[in-house]
């Protein structure tokens, strides 16, 4: 986890910087554009370039090492130890690709649907893309926080201006207030971490005493009490964003009142769980272990609660919002299994549920555009009128309830396998939630697509047009592909996940017997050990056998 491969070793140009700032540059150039068609084409091309660039990451990614890759590190605010430091590893790689993919699909989806303030809408989408990618690739805590916070602004405007619900004012403000509260507490946690590093660095290194560098912060030992504080504060930030039950109350509002683009991003891009995996587990390993019972309880409560509420809602979007909360519970139990298979399953599940969740939202968007309502009773028998829609949404629905052969099944299997190793009761409760999930997804599909056509409006509904087919087909294709052949994903994720698990095993309290090496100068430590005849290293060298052992 502490290794860094710099961009110039891997590829000829600073790929991550390009990925982050290309959308913002595009947004700036949109100010000049007046014609809506030109703006649409420009943004579509931009988002496709982004997608291609992120796929380039996938191609050039060195699998088999837990290193941070494509790293760029430029001093930014030197007196406070803040750098422009970005990089990706197996944890963030697929989330970046998912972000660019969903943005591109959202642009296609919005093609002829958004007419009012089109330019501003596209600008918001592009800025949102920048901030989401920035969150995934930042290795400096302040840089991360910058992207994390800026994200609220385009989201606010998206919900507020292009939302469809009557309560969108309220929902937008609630979104900002909840998430801002979580993130300022997270900032406090970051500052404790930063000052802890400072105290350690002053005595150990005697230089470079301030740093927000994620990789540096991993090095400073943390007393258990501080770990618990930091874990709690940082967890609150990610739990709200997640959202983890019981911090979820803003989500249904934002999804119901906001536009489809917002719902896609909220259910597709799992920022909160990424934060837990990236920051909470490695930075505060002992505290994470202590928190397992609490985290499992919260996650399972969310899992069951979300599914139960989804069963009772007659509204498609509300159903998906609560279904999303339930799905997130699955990711969280996987993360806090704290073993390789559980965490890797959770990471895979972030991608899978992102695909399935966003796919469902697109389907709801198609339905709503035709019928103008999310009300379940307004539909019925649609399969007769729109066979293509029915078939593709069947694939997505099956994925959402973890049907074997779909991607979610694999993730769910891994998560449950991981959790079983910890405590079978947790896994048993998790399995029961799968049944509830199947219940609401099937009943929803049945009421919308099956049966007789009861409403004349449904009879007049058309099937998917070509743009919509592209979206639904991409989602369904991904679901089947990952479901049948997940190895390219798993092989890239595994080293990074293993590094996190190693870290959890080693622990990070001051008296743990791990050798700590100055991240900036690893040789100094080894030389010091060699100079000391009583050091472990010297003893080991002395006792080395004549021939190297194979």
């Amino acid at each position, binding site marked *: 986890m502490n290794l860094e491969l710099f961009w110039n070793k891997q590829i000829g140009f600073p790929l991550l910087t390009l990925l982050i700032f290309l959308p913002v540059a595009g947004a700036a150039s949109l100010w000049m554009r007046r014609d809506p068609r030109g703006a649409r084409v420009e943004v579509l091309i931009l988002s496709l370039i982004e997608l291609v660039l992120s796929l380039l990451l996938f191609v050039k990614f060195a699998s088999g090492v837990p290193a941070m890759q494509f790293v760029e590190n430029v001093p*930014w*605010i*030197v*007196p*406070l130890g803040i750098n422009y430091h970005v990089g990706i590893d197996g944890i963030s790689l697929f989330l970046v690709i998912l972000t660019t993919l969903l943005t591109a699909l959202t642009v296609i989806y919005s093609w002829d649907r958004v007419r009012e303030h089109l330019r501003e809408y596209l600008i918001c989408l592009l800025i949102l893309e920048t901030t989401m990618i920035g969150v995934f690739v930042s290795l400096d805590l*302040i840089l991360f*926080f*910058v992207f994390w*916070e*800026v994200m*609220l*602004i385009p989201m*606010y*405007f998206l919900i*507020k*201006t292009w939302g469809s619900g009557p309560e969108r*004012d309220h929902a937008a*403000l609630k979104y*900002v*207030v909840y998430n*801002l*509260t979580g993130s*300022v*507490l997270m*900032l*406090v946690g970051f*500052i*404790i971490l*930063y*000052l802890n590093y*400072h105290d350690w660095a002053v005595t150990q290194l005697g230089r470079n005493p301030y740093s927000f560098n994620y990789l540096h912060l991993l090095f400073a030992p943390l007393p258990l009490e501080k770990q618990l504080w930091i874990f709690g504060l940082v967890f609150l930030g990610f739990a709200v964003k997640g959202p983890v039950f019981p911090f979820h109350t803003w989500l249904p509002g934002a999804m119901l009142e906001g536009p489809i683009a917002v719902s896609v991003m909220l259910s597709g891009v799992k920022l909160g769980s990424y934060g837990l995996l990236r920051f909470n587990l490695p930075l505060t390993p002992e505290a994470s272990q202590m928190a397992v019972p609490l985290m499992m309880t919260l996650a399972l409560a969310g899992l069951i609660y979300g599914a139960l509420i989804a069963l009772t809602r007659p509204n498609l979007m509300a159903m998906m919002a609560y279904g999303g909360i339930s799905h997130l519970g699955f990711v969280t139990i996987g993360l806090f299994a704290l073993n390789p298979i559980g965490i890797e399953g959770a990471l895979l599940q972030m991608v899978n549920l992102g695909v399935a969740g966003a796919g469902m939202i697109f389907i709801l968007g198609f339905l709503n555009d035709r019928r103008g309502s999310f009300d379940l009773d307004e539909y019925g028998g649609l399969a007769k009128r729109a066979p293509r829609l029915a078939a593709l949404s069947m694939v997505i629905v099956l994925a959402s309830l973890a049907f074997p052969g779909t991607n979610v099944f694999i993730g769910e299997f891994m998560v449950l396998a991981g959790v079983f190793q910890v405590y079978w009761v947790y896994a048993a409760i998790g399995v029961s939630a799968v049944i509830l999930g199947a219940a609401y997804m099937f009943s929803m599909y049945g009421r919308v697509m099956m049966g007789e056509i009861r409403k004349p409006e449904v009879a007049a509904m058309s099937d998917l047009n070509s743009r919509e087919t592209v979206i639904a087909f991409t989602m369904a294709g991904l679901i089947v592909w990952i479901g049948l052949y997940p190895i390219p994903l798993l092989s890239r994720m595994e080293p990074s996940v293993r590094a996190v698990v190693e870290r959890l095993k080693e622990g990070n309290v001051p008296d743990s017997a791990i050798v700590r090496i100055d991240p900036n100068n690893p040789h100094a430590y080894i030389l010091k050990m060699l100079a000391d005849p009583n050091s472990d290293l010297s003893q080991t060298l002395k006792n080395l056998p004549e021939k190297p052992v194979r």
Partner: protein
Amino acid sequence: MPFTFTMTPVDVELLMPEILMTGLLSLILCLDFLFPRIGKTTLAWLSIAGMGGIFLLLAGYFIDGRHGTLFHEMYVIDPMAIFFKAFILGTTILVFLASIDYLKKVPVFRGEYYFLGLLAALGMMLMVSANDLLSLFITLEFSTFSFYILVAYLRDDPKSNEAGLKFFILGVFAAGLLAFGISLIYGETGSIIFTDFARMHAHLTPGMVIGFLLIFVALGFKIGAVPFHAWVPDIYQGAPTPVTAFLSIAPKAATFAILLRIFTATLGDIRGDWVWLIVAISAVSMTYGNIVAISQKNIKRLLAYSGIAQIGNVLIGLAAASKMGDGAILFYLMTYLFANLGAFTVVIIFSNLTNSDDLEDYNGLSRRSPLLAGALLIFFLSLAGVPPLAGFIGKLYVFVAAMNEGLLALVVIGGINIVISMYYYLIVIKRVYIYMPKDNAPIPVSFPMRLVLITTVGGVLLLGIYPKAFIEISAAAAELFSRML
């Protein structure tokens, strides 16, 4: 003690900025009444050019690291004082630029406006160098006096007159408290010089406690911290808007120079005895200012309450009472200068056209002037502390300084206040961007106004995106200041 007045050439050189400033304002006054036909705008540009020159001189002094004391330690020039002098001059320059359009509507005494503004600036420049209680009292009154007149400048407007009267009564009251506090401290210690108190390492006697508390109350009035804030909203609303902008930044910054000298330099050794007071006032100011701001209907009152909250944020740095805290205060004041002055500039431009400060009239501003709306968005987001704007780095800096001294609870309160403040800033932004305007007339922005907007927006962005140089300046000023005493 026999008082001998000596001035060496070195002393004159140290005093050169103030001497030049005195010359400049005398020139403006003479030009105004000797040549009544001279354009008032010319006077404005002349003062701005003069102050720009003095600003450069101060920058040179800062780089050279000049320092020294004058008049038997009554008066001190150190990097901290030079920083604040330059800060005040910068504020005055921007306020003058923003006043040019506004004054065209005022029928009489337009030349005197610039004279009084310069006089107030000179008073504050002297104030930040005060090194004993007596020079503190004199310079503080000197600068406040010009403000009494400036606040009541619109003589046909009852609100302005009322504000002037209120400001005067409260100001005189605060001056009384200050004088009383000084007399108590002198009675207890036999000295009035800050550095003497520091050297004495005296334990606090009851008389000194009361004395310093009285001084703190008087200074609390000047910065408008809760519970000494009651005058702020009324006077902000009543005063001419450029004066409000001036009042909301420069005197507060000058008072912080004094607070830094008293608290971190003089009483720094006994931080444990007073830190709870600053912590409490900081927490209450932030929370009260932000909560009351939510329900405001007038943008000047909204900015008044948000200013109270911002002062609470600066006080976090004072509570830290460390070198880092001092640097954080200086940096935060710079971010506050750009964002707050920028916001007031938007208010001035808007009210010049519409004669209204009601928030309702800001509906749909983005359709009438995308420039103003965009600028207001940036200023408000910076005041709220959204990265990557100046306010975020400022807040981060004071938070880190306070956490370094173990003030976790205060930082958490500060964090929660970011959320509260975001709420009302967003309400205004919502009006500006989403509501439909009643009147679709575009809002013209004149050249001087454009200049102020560009400077302030540029400042907010620069301090947010590349704050390295400014953090170094603040840290250098704080560093040398702490070493000097």
